[in-house]
């Protein structure tokens, strides 16, 4: 064979406009998965302040919860977790071979449901915080 032209990384990353539902579901699932792994570390870090006494733990939690950024991040965390759970259920059905023809609809459904749950949670998460 003659030498051939390698179209390189561009072709892998610049096609996102043309992605279909299944592809977006995969990308979001990967992304939310990594976010949750990252959150786990901060989660452990915050919880382990309890090792140096109950007061230290309470102070840390109170200090964090008084910040608006933390509240907003919590909403984001909920969004990420809910999507990961719902899409995980979708993938479970895909693995069982159930409803593969409707895989795109189930992805859209999990997106919409995530949105609804997140919006409904906003008042709870943002109550009692001063800017």
């Amino acid at each position: 064979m003659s030498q051939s032209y390698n179209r390189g990384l561009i072709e892998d990353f610049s096609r996102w406009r043309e992605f279909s539902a299944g592809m977006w579901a995969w990308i979001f699932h990967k992304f939310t998965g990594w976010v949750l792994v990252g959150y786990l570390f901060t989660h452990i870090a915050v919880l382990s302040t309890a090792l140096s006494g109950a007061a230290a733990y309470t102070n840390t939690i109170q200090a964090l919860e008084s910040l608006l950024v933390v509240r907003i991040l919590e909403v984001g965390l909920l969004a990420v977790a809910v999507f990961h759970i719902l899409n995980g259920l979708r993938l479970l059905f895909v693995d069982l071979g159930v409803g593969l023809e409707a895989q795109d609809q189930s992805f859209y459904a999990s997106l919409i449901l995530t949105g609804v749950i997140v919006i409904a949670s906003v008042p709870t998460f943002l109550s009692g915080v001063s800017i």
Partner: protein
Amino acid sequence: MSTQVPEQVEDESSAESVSPGKQKRDQKKRERAQRIQEQREAEAAEKARSEDDTYHLKVFRYDPEVPEKQEPRFDDFYVPYKQGMTVLDALMWARDHYDSSLTFRHSCRQAICGSDALFVNGSQRLGCKTQLSDLAEPVRIEPLPHADVVKDLVVDMEHFYDQMEAVEPYFQTNSLPDGELDEQRQTRENREKVKMSTRCIWCSACMSSCNIAAGDNEYLGPAAINKAYRFAMDEREGEDMKQRRLEILEQEHGVWRCQTQFSCTEVCPKDIPLTEHIQELKREAIKNNLKFW
């Protein structure tokens, strides 16, 4: 154009009551007049359309053997539209009228040979099965992604064929029928089960669309796994052979590499439910290895 509207067959069964001969003749006469009228109108419409209706193609060009063409570029072709024109028809027109060096594979023009899988407007499609009228302009035609380009729209298929061969894509069995001339019968249910998987035309559209196959050259790819499914699910091959096929499939770069992005199922020109087949083979592989004792 390859497709021609067949001549309308006269309906002989109508008009059987009063003076059937006369009625029939009148009927025929009227129909013929109408048909000629319609034909004229269609021709006029066709002519009017072909005068101003052209399709704008943007075609990927690259030729490693000519120094000036080593830098890939897009060429613009304006092809006059005819009703029923496919992407392949347009490419052939462009080649025949503008640039005879435009290179692409094609053969049967009826979605059976699997030669002309192209990347058209951001999706893997068969050129001969894609109507121009379904596409937004400009129609962007590129060679299949994730494959080495040999020239223009021609990609190197060697790797794809290697993967296909790796799953032994042919019928093998240890349990032959008794008589020498006996047929190897398949039950209707079993045939129905493998029906869709037999449709594969080896066009490589699925392999090209698969994100995992792009990053992992050892991954068998959707087409090869589908081929393996076709034989693993064929009851006539027997248990030994199914075992052997599952051993090939459950290797590290076999079925487990699939992450159900559904890209292959989306682009398959023969509508094979590839992801479904891969998932079923995953379950078969698990069942095969699960032992309760």
